[in-house]
């Protein structure tokens, strides 16, 4: 019982860092970066700009998300919530998360090159390219494991949203006459993440005003 309650206390302390909504906004922007070039393409907007735009849009969104994450955690969360160094168990768990993300990136790169050299078949009857299926499965597994190690419950839902967004878009394009399927799919996956993150962020700012202590 003693061990259990201390474990719960550590978990509560660690989870308090997800109250700021920064992870939610970060992940929402990353997911949006996958969909935005496709959405613009659906509306014919990419035809009017240079060929480099489909690469520049996700890249700039990813950089923006990363900057928001780093700056937000450093200059908004830390002064309000405080600074803490967690114990060995938590550090080990976070090391698992880092390892998982590294494996995920590696699988992504391998899948990309295999599809580039046409080693992987493009797609079957469903209209969903094989690399997209591989990407979705690995994202679902990696994000779910990360959610487990980080005790971050919302991440399970985000893992699902990340995993379904691309395959559903391709499936809808091939099998339905729906207009702008990408817009619909990403409005139902990335946008809720951004809304949840923003609400959490505003709540966090109200709940934790910047404290002036002798130290600061």
């Amino acid at each position, binding site marked *: 019982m*003693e061990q259990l309650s*201390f*474990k719960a*206390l*550590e978990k*509560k*302390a660690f989870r*308090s860092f997800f109250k700021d909504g920064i992870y939610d906004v970060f992940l929402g922007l990353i997911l949006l970066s996958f969909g935005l070039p496709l959405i613009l393409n659906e509306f014919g907007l990419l035809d009017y700009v240079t060929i480099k735009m489909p690469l520049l849009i996700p890249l700039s969104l990813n950089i923006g998300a990363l900057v928001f994450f780093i700056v937000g955690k*450093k200059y908004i969360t830390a*002064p*309000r*919530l*405080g*600074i*803490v*160094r*967690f*114990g*060995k168990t938590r550090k080990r768990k976070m090391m698992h998360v880092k390892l998982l993300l590294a494996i995920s990136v590696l699988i992504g790169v391998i899948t990309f090159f295999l599809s580039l050299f046409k080693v992987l078949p493009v797609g079957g009857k469903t209209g969903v390219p094989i690399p997209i299926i591989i990407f979705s499965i690995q994202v679902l597994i990696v994000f779910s494991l990360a959610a487990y190690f980080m005790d971050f419950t919302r991440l399970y839902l985000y893992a699902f949203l990340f995993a379904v967004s691309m395959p559903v878009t391709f499936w809808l394009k091939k099998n339905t006459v729906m207009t702008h399927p990408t817009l619909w799919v990403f409005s139902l996956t990335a946008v809720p993440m951004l809304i949840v993150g923003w609400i959490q962020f505003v709540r966090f700012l109200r709940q*934790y005003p910047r*404290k002036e*202590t*002798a*130290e*600061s």
Partner: protein
Amino acid sequence: MKSRKRTDTPDLSQLLDIDRIIHEPARLMILAYLSVVESANFIFLMNQTGLTQGNMSFHLAKLEESGYVAIKKQFVGKRPHTMLSITDKGNKNLKEYLKTMKGLIECLVDLR
């Protein structure tokens, strides 16, 4: 703590030996949080415990005086921060306190 069979007369005099530094709720809370992390700063502890700045300072001073908490300047990234951590003595006494309290509570429950 003396070993005692449950059927024996409970020795409530052990209550007098309770560590009074730890027995104070605010200090117990601070020590409990510090025991599950490596180190934390003042603001983090204030947020987690819900104590006011004045209360925190007062209890931290007591804990530092007793040698249960260490206050150090540490670099987090490139910036120095005043970080608080539980000492070995603090950890040992907290465990001892919890063990004693658990025993006493069990003993009191048996009495009813």
